């Protein structure tokens, strides 16, 4: 290898087979295949010939537009409340903060369907909060586009909070102190110093949250239902299409796969530039 002193500077690429025990290599390759084969299957069985026609159908466009709109709005909503929440968790000290942090991250591990049921119980027409929204303002959330946005926010916001909180913890809090000694209030220090410093974390968290919102299924169908044009997002459309028009389901899936790959590429680019 490159241990001898005469070896030229040019480093040879490491060959993965060399020195890797078979007991590790075999399951590793099996795992890799397990992850990649379904994606390949999607490409192999894609109705390439009828694809342009499938993708330009009004139903697909409707679902795609609704998905993009809801995921983007949910991400914006997550930013508005999630970044301050992340700051609170990272920068202040109060009793029960650890518990609160755990609760904030609960939607990450909670089955989305359960999230949908919980949202119904809270914001449904007879829900704990929803009954008052209905009685006082005449606002009904379930089975509306707003309901989709709320369901997606519920599921996606923890990704943003976790990402931003992690970045905040990695950022020296003494920058805020320095700003304070220069006459900045705590909010000014946050806005003019901390926010620019954690921008990469916010961007990464937003992309994660957006991708999660775009793929959201369980909470959406439970809380907002499946009405084309109003609450039927791409994942719901895929599921429905699979039962009566598999070719359309594959086409829709390809679109989501393409979006996911684009997100990954975007994230990678973001890390490369900022890290």
């Amino acid at each position: 290898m490159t241990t001898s002193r005469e070896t030229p500077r040019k480093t040879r690429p490491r060959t993965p087979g060399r020195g890797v025990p078979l007991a590790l290599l075999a399951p590793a390759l099996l795992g890799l295949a397990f992850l990649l084969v379904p994606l390949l299957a999607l490409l192999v069985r894609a109705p390439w010939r009828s694809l342009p026609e499938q993708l330009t159908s009004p139903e697909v466009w409707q679902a795609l537009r609704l998905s993009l709109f809801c995921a983007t709005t949910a991400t914006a909503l997550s930013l508005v409340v999630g970044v301050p929440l992340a700051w609170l968790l990272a920068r202040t000290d109060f009793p029960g903060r650890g518990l609160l942090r755990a609760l904030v991250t609960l939607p990450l591990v909670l089955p989305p369907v359960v999230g949908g049921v919980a949202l119904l119980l809270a914001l449904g027409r007879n829900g704990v909060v929803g009954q008052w929204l209905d009685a006082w303002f005449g606002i009904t959330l379930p089975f509306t586009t707003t309901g989709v946005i709320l369901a997606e926010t519920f599921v996606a916001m923890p990704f943003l909070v976790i990402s931003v909180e992690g970045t905040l913890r990695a950022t020296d809090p003494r920058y805020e102190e320095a700003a304070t000694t220069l006459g900045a209030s705590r909010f000014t220090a946050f806005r003019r110093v901390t926010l620019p410093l954690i921008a990469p974390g916010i961007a990464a968290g937003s992309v994660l949250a957006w991708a999660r919102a775009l793929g959201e299924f369980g909470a959406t169908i439970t809380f907002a239902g499946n009405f084309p044009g109003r609450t039927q997002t791409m994942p719901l459309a895929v599921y429905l299409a699979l039962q009566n028009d598999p070719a359309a389901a594959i086409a829709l899936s390809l679109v989501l796969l393409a979006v996911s790959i684009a997100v990954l590429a975007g994230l990678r680019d973001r890390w490369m530039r900022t890290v």
Partner: protein
Amino acid sequence: MPETMPPRPGKGPAPAGTASEPGAGGLDARLVVDRGSFRLDIGLTAAQGEVVALLGPNGAGKTTALRALAGLAPLTAGHLRLDGADLHRTPPESRPVGVVFQDYLLFPHLSALDNVAFGPRCRGAGKAEARAQAAEWLERMGLADHAGAKPRRLSGGQAQRVALARALATHPRLLLLDEPLAALDARTRLEVRAQLRRHLAAFEAVAVLVTHDPLDAMVLADRLVVVEHGRIVQEGSPSAIARHPRTEYIAQLVGLNLYRGHADGHTVRLDAGPAVSTTDDLTGPAFVAFPPGAVTLYRDRPTGSSARNLWHCAIAGLETHGDQIRAELTGELSLAADLTTAAAAELDLHPGAPVWATVKATQTHAYPA
């Protein structure tokens, strides 16, 4: 290292009262901060135009004192008055205090100019006005060419000056510097120390700097306050402290062997055991000090030596000190001795080797404790 401080240029007439008088200009503080098992309790006063250095080992509480002055660490008890105004309950953003942090903490996303303009902006200046003021400060620091540079493009010395300009741009009545030269390499340090000294000399309000480096403290400050374990152990002018150290830490800083004991005429009976003969004449609790260079070592008990201070010791350690070798001795008396490399070789010194150490009475110095 200059022996005495030259008069400071650019200072107004000295205030009539001292800072400890209520209502007088300057700083008057008693800082008490409880932090679990650690307690800081120091009184600190400084007149306008005075530069005070808090000197002490790591963990002595110097930085805590600085944070308390800036309002970043709450006082458990005590008081804090600056130019007669009570700042005890004033939040940090409203205190007329500027801070130069140890690693400067320049905002990485802002240019040098915008870093300096940050303070004036927060204190109500318009964007253009704040930038004009900042440009003026950078000009004064000789950094006009680097106004547009981001902090990561600045050298250590430049970053230090930007940090100083940023702190001064808010016109503080109290300037705090936390280890202002610690982040610099030795060569830059020399140059920046001289510049900083000039800027501090021109600063008309109170400056308090924290350092563990005695040279920085002695060059930059008018008065040293030595802090150990959260307490003040000695304060005074640099030269007074160098001549009469009162703790082992200070003695080591200024390169002296220091012992505490009880004097009776020309003999000081040390708390550590043996007695030391001196030429000074005093009675009562006393310190005795002598430099490591005054110690002479022998492998066999000297017979013809006129030295009256003779102790049997063993070598505990040897290290190179410039072109000299410093030997740490234990035994009847723990002390440091300096000798030439040739002498060390001739004596065949090695850790554990028994030696006799002598010091002439004329080379010791005794003073009341």
